[in-house]
């Protein structure tokens, strides 16, 4: 397929994408999908948050996971950057620290898909009880 270059190319792709997927109207139902927030302040970016974010976006597209990836600022865990907060529908948010490409994939494959927790959770936000 030719590369996308103009707004018209984008319109065509949009129709294609629209047909293949069932539109979730994400912005209207934030409770129905997984929200992933990557901390992208100076500390996060310097520690490699961008690679983590790219990995998450690719993986979500590839595995067709009902999730959106957004950015957040510094949460004060500069020592543990890159950090990723995951909020599954109806669950408390969990913050993972020292995330790299491999761990980003594990967050999706394990925590998001099966609910299995990983090492490196920043305990401040997380209560097991």
């Amino acid at each position, binding site marked *: 397929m030719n*590369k*996308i*270059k*103009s*707004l*018209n*190319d*984008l*319109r065509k*792709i*949009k129709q294609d*994408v*629209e047909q*293949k*997927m069932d*539109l979730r109207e*994400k*912005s209207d139902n934030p409770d129905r999908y997984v929200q992933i927030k*990557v901390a*992208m*302040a*100076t*500390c996060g*970016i*310097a520690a490699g948050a*961008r690679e983590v*974010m*790219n990995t998450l*976006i*690719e993986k*979500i*597209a590839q595995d*067709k996971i009902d999730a*959106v*990836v*957004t*950015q957040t*600022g*510094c*949460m*004060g865990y*500069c020592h543990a950057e890159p950090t990723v907060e995951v909020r599954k529908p109806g669950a408390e948010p969990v913050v993972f620290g020292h995330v790299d490409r491999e761990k980003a994939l594990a967050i999706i494959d394990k925590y998001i898909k099966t609910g299995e927790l990983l090492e490196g959770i920043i305990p401040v936000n997380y209560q097991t009880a």
Partner: protein
Amino acid sequence: MNDLSLHLLDIVQNSITAGATLITILLDEQPGDDRLTLSISDNGRGMTAEQVQKVTDPYFTSRTTRKVGLGIPLFKQSAEASGGHLDIQSTTGEGTTTTAVFGYSHLDRLPLGNMANAVMLLVSSNPVIDFVYTYRYNEGEYVFDTREVKEALEGVPVNEPQIIKYLEEMISENMQAVKS
């Protein structure tokens, strides 16, 4: 920060925190004049003259989660290392423009990095904010405007995973076309 696209990701966070709804980015490469300009303008809440003065001080931050703010000081340092400078214009209630000018051919001038990817990450992770990204190289120019993109997408969100990668491709292809 290893490249200019990382600075861009960083500095735009200031605009987002300032409540901007429209963020305008200009990347202007003028090798003939030995100049590269990266400028970020927003319509956020702006800063007072006193804040503008303090913002290049690493020990000044508007945040309460920590005591240092390195985004602007690092950006300034990168610009100055290449013989350039940083300028901030801000008006309370109207917005802020942060402009870094670099010496194009200076050995210590940071490479661009993946600008198309940086713009895509900003657009997709802040779907309610509009971005206008202008890339200039000599006389050539490309403008990526999310208001047009959102119209073309007719309700399909800009952060739809299947769409995101095409946005990056579109920006990247057009930047290459302008440059060649």
